[in-house]
């Protein structure tokens, strides 16, 4: 394991630059994400926070024009090292997206498929597939709502439930980190609060990094907040990163102050 000092960091990013072709979307970001905490990325739209998030499990690579410079250490290993398989990275660093995107399969299959493709082996001290699905749905606080309709389509439940299904599906892979890209922006306020509540609960077991353009959400649900904004050349920079309560009551940068008090731009 790493030195005790580092071990509380799940991810250490240093000198990260992300480009779309020639355009630099994220400029020189260094940040250390604490383990088993909720960290929120906030900032105005276009400040590169989503790009930044997607770079943490190499989802960026699915965009052909995108390339990344710098180091992203995940528990001490650089995920951009040449011998690292992005599939392996994504297994350990799961992701939940803005719009709930359950597969057009049953609720049960949505969870089971994720486990299955990753070689889930039931039996001998391990749960059976049915149990595993239940465990994951319970962790996602969805079990009670769907236990009677596990074989209905994942698209048949409400948006908020779909999003929790997506979280359950992510949990089924046993990631260490869950990235959430505006997980509640397509949901109504009650469903939003449920997701936030779920994030808090999941933080007992997982490191959670959430991008949100809703700064109240970041305030409510996170332990740490990173504020990004745009530089003069429109590339995203990290302005301030601190404990959420500190950042929201006494930010040290005037840009942060202006943004969180709604006086931005």
């Amino acid at each position, binding site marked *: 394991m790493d030195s005790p000092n580092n071990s509380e960091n799940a991810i250490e990013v240093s000198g990260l630059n992300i480009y779309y072709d020639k355009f630099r979307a994220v400029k020189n970001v260094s940040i250390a994400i604490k383990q088993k905490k909720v960290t929120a990325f906030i900032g105005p739209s276009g400040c590169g926070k989503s790009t930044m998030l997607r770079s943490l*499990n190499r989802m960026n690579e699915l965009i052909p024009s995108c390339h990344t410079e710098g180091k992203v250490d995940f528990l001490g290993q650089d995920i951009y090292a040449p011998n690292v398989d992005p599939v392996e990275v994504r*297994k350990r660093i799961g*992701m939940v997206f803005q719009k709930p*995107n359950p597969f*057009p399969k049953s609720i049960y299959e949505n969870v089971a498929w994720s486990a299955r*493709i*990753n070689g889930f082996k039931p039996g001998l001290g391990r749960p059976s597939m049915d149990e595993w699905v239940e465990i994951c749905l319970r962790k996602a606080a969805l079990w009670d709502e769907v236990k009677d309709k596990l074989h209905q389509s994942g698209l048949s439940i409400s948006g908020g439930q779909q999003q929790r299904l997506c979280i359950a599906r*992510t949990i*089924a*892979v046993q990631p260490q980190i869950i990235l959430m890209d505006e997980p509640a922006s397509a949901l109504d306020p009650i469903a939003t609060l449920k997701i936030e509540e779920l994030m808090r609960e999941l933080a007992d077991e997982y490191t959670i990094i959430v991008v949100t353009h809703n700064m109240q959400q970041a305030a409510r649900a996170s332990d740490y907040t990173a504020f990004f904004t745009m530089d003069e050349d429109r590339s995203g920079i990290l302005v301030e990163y601190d404990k959420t309560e500190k950042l929201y009551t006494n930010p040290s940068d005037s840009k942060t102050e202006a943004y969180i008090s709604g006086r931005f731009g």
Partner: protein
Amino acid sequence: MDLSKHSRPAEILIKAFLVFCGFFSILITVGIIYEVGSEALLFFSNPQVNLWKFFTGTVWQPQAQEFGILPLVNATFMTTLFAMMVALPLGLGVAMYLSEYATPRVRKVLKPVLEVLAGIPTVVYGYFALTFMTPLLRQIFGVDVVNIYNTASAGLVMGILILPLVASMCEDALSAVPQSLRDASYALGATKFETVVKIVLPAAISGIAAAVIVAFSRAVGETMIVAMAAGAGPNFTFNPFKSAETMTGHIVRISGGDLSYDSIDYNSLFAIAILLFLFTLTLNVISQRIVRKYRRKYE
């Protein structure tokens, strides 16, 4: 100030014209059913025609008053089978490559190639079957085995003709699958192949099914290739290297000559045509139902 309603004659006139245009397509359908149907009815009401024999007979010889449509249908399905064997795997493969693997740059080059392939008139494919495919087949399987005119050659080339259609319909179906599903799959640690085959393909399956049906309908209705390369003369054979005449091929050959109206030969062509029409119509209706269903799914 007068705000009361008043008529605008010009507007009404224009609208009347547009309504006529809208209903004109119905006229075409009615025309096909009425004109082609009534000629076909003349054929079936002819005392020399026996409906049972028409559908089960294996000899089509209008001169001998033999009207068994099976040889024509058989040849049609033989060529169609060959066409599907070429078009489906290749078309689906191309669609998969274009939609899931190709970089935008490669796609920019390949899509026009497919469009060109799709825009080539069928008579050119017929020529291609005669001057390339048939000699090739004869070279491979032997001149004695393969006739100059044969259903295999026509079918294979027809497959190339249909390939762009299958590819573009399948690609539409594949790209209608939201990117978010792919992202979700990758984020769960799936490989590209697992994502494509286990998530994208099942999600697009109804669209692909529609493509298969449309391809089938196109192959059945395709005329020039079979008219040029499959052979002239109805021949009830299952040997793909023998010549045989398809329904469409027969219509073209007989109507191309000087044909006297109101003869039973003339009417028999319409009987074949109405059969062809009903068959392809059914296929098209089914495929459209499917397409509508899958479009709705992600909207």
